[in-house]
């Protein structure tokens, strides 16, 4: 099944090329991009099944020796992330098509949108499948360059403004990543991750620690962990709803994925667990305090996004198998829930023309469906049982208590507090925006009809979220297996170098 491995990257890229050739023929472009992403989704399903049955798969492109060529690797962790990211990109694409079909002020120029979006999807898949550090960098760059274009599409004043911060910040993080790559190569002479696992353990501890900090800084900027998170709530809310939804779901989680690899594979000999735990705790707390202060729904949701990254960082920082399993499950839950929330907010904005809480009111009466689409993920985000956020949090707390250090207990306490404050933030939005009397602005827009594909996409995402809740047991089992394999780098290395690392 090894030949399947490059397909999640190649299919969207080929689709992007085809879409560029078809500029101006919107119907064909739509067909091409939807089928490319649907095919990638099918491949991701097969890959997860293969990994579950046969274990980790790897392919070195062009038949080079593994430490020289470009390795693509799929293990439990990559397969899970890949599957969820494929689902999210496909559903959001359908939402975007719905938004474009219906026209209106916020219409995305379709000819630019489709190729860029497909490159973004290819970049995300490439980052999840990368088996060497430079290929990971290329994956990051693909998705970042595509995200610059998507964020500023339309070129309005607010988007240009937020684009400036976002682009400069992302470029800076890429520069730091590249510095890390240069340092890694200078000290070990290789960039293959499995090879690095062996070689980084051989170099002096101080050097390894310095390199780890450089890479952690780069990935932390991408994952928006405190204190490197200020860019996110400023840039995401200005983009169009589908763009924000896919950014919020996937881009930060690619950073989290890279941190997992960094901690468990590259620097398994010397992970900075306490630093990560402390940063995770601060991210949770300060993110959610930011969310409470917001008057704009999109900004509020962006701050909760930052805050909940903290849970995953905390889970990784625990460094135990249960902690990592909980972090992986939390990432899967969080990708779907944030995307759904942003899609619901997008529907609400389409309906009322605003996301400002001072102007909103009575949306629940105007469109009960949109209200439900907001309510379910919002409750899941705050960890109300029986939704998936509850399982993720319980897993994290269990792992924290099992680890037993003072910092871990602090993390459990702050995690519970953050859950409550999240509930407060979304409940405030709910009562001001959805439950109160219809404001004059909202009442004036009662005639707006929501396009079918947008509603369909929103309903599908909620269904996916509920499905994650329903299959939480088996899914948690998969996360557990992925974490167990992730914490056993010897197994990873053995697949890449069956005859031992050179």
């Amino acid at each position, binding site marked *: 099944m090894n030949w399947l491995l490059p397909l999640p990257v190649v299919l969207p890229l080929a689709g992007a090329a085809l879409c560029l050739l078809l500029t101006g023929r919107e119907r064909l472009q739509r067909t091409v991009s939807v089928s490319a992403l649907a095919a990638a989704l099918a491949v991701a399903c097969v890959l997860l099944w293969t990994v579950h049955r046969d274990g980790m798969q790897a392919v070195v492109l062009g038949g080079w020796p593994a430490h*020289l060529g470009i390795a693509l690797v799929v293990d439990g962790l990559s397969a899970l992330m890949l599957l969820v990211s494929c689902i999210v990109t496909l559903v959001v694409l359908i939402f975007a098509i719905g938004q474009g079909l219906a026209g209106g002020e916020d219409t995305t120029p379709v000819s630019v949108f489709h190729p860029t979006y497909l490159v973004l999807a290819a970049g995300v898949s490439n980052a999840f499948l990368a088996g060497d550090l*430079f290929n990971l960098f*290329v994956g990051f*760059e693909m998705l970042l*360059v595509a995200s*610059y*274009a998507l964020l*500023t599409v339309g*070129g309005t*004043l*607010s988007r*240009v*403004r937020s*684009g*400036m*911060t976002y*682009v*400069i910040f992302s*470029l*800076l993080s*890429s*520069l730091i990543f*590249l*510095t890390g*790559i*240069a*340092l890694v*190569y*200078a000290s070990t002479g290789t960039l293959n991750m499995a090879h690095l696992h062996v070689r980084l353990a051989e170099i002096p501890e101080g050097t390894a620690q310095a390199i780890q900090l450089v890479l952690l800084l780069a990935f932390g900027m991408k994952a928006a962990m405190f204190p490197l998170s*200020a860019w996110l*709530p*400023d840039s995401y809310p200005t983009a169009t709803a589908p763009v924000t939804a896919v950014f919020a779901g996937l881009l930060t989680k690619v950073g989290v994925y890279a941190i997992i690899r960094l901690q468990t594979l590259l620097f398994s000999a010397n992970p900075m667990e306490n630093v990560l735990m402390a940063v995770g705790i601060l991210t949770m707390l300060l993110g959610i305090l930011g969310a409470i202060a917001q008057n*704009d729904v999109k*900004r509020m949701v962006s701050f909760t996004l930052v805050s909940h990254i903290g849970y995953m960082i905390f889970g990784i920082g625990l460094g135990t198998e249960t902690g990592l399993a909980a972090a992986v499950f939390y990432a899967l839950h969080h990708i779907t829930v944030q995307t759904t929330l942003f899609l619901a907010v997008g529907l609400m904005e389409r309906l009322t023309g605003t996301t*400002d809480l001072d102007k909103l009111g009575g949306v629940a009466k105007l469109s009960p469906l949109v209200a439900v689409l907001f309510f379910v993920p919002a409750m899941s985000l705050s960890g109300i049982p029986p939704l998936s956020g509850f399982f993720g949090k319980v897993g994290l707390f269990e792992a924290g208590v099992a680890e037993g250090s003072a910092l871990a207990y602090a993390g459990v306490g702050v995690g519970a507090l953050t859950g409550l404050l999240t509930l407060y933030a979304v409940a405030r939005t709910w009562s001001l925006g959805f439950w109160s009397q219809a404001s004059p602005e909202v009442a004036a827009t009662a005639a707006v009809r929501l396009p079918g594909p947008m509603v369909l996409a929103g309903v599908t995402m909620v269904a996916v979220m509920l499905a994650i809740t329903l299959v939480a047991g088996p899914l948690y089992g998969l996360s557990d297996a992925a974490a167990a394999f992730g914490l056993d780098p010897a197994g990873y290395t053995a697949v890449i170098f069956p005859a031992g690392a050179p």
Partner: protein
Amino acid sequence: MSPSITLVLVIVVMSTVGTYMMLERSLVRMILGIMLVSNAINLLLLSASGAAGKAPLMNVNDTSEMGDPLPHALILTAIVITLASAAFVFTLAYRAWQLTGTDEVPDDVEDRRIAAAMPHRSEDEEVVSADEEEDDIR
């Protein structure tokens, strides 16, 4: 492996100057700074390849005398990526100039909200920040 001192000096000067320029408010200066730093990092990659050697051509040069070609491939990729990003940022700066007549990065929304809430600011400054916030949130 000990890197060439010339390369190290050039890297230090370029990244210092580049970092200084990145701290500016104007987008064009920032991207010039980023380009300087990214070229400094390319040199860092180059120095990571060890001592200079002959071109890595099989059957022309002896394997033991060749330089390490892998960092060169990495540098090429990095150069292409920086080129594309820089082109994008320049168009962004041009678009900002078209819309506002300046390419300066504005204060973020939160800063302006805090500034507007500060009691000791003069009256008209408050009005300006409140207005700006309004059109930013749209």
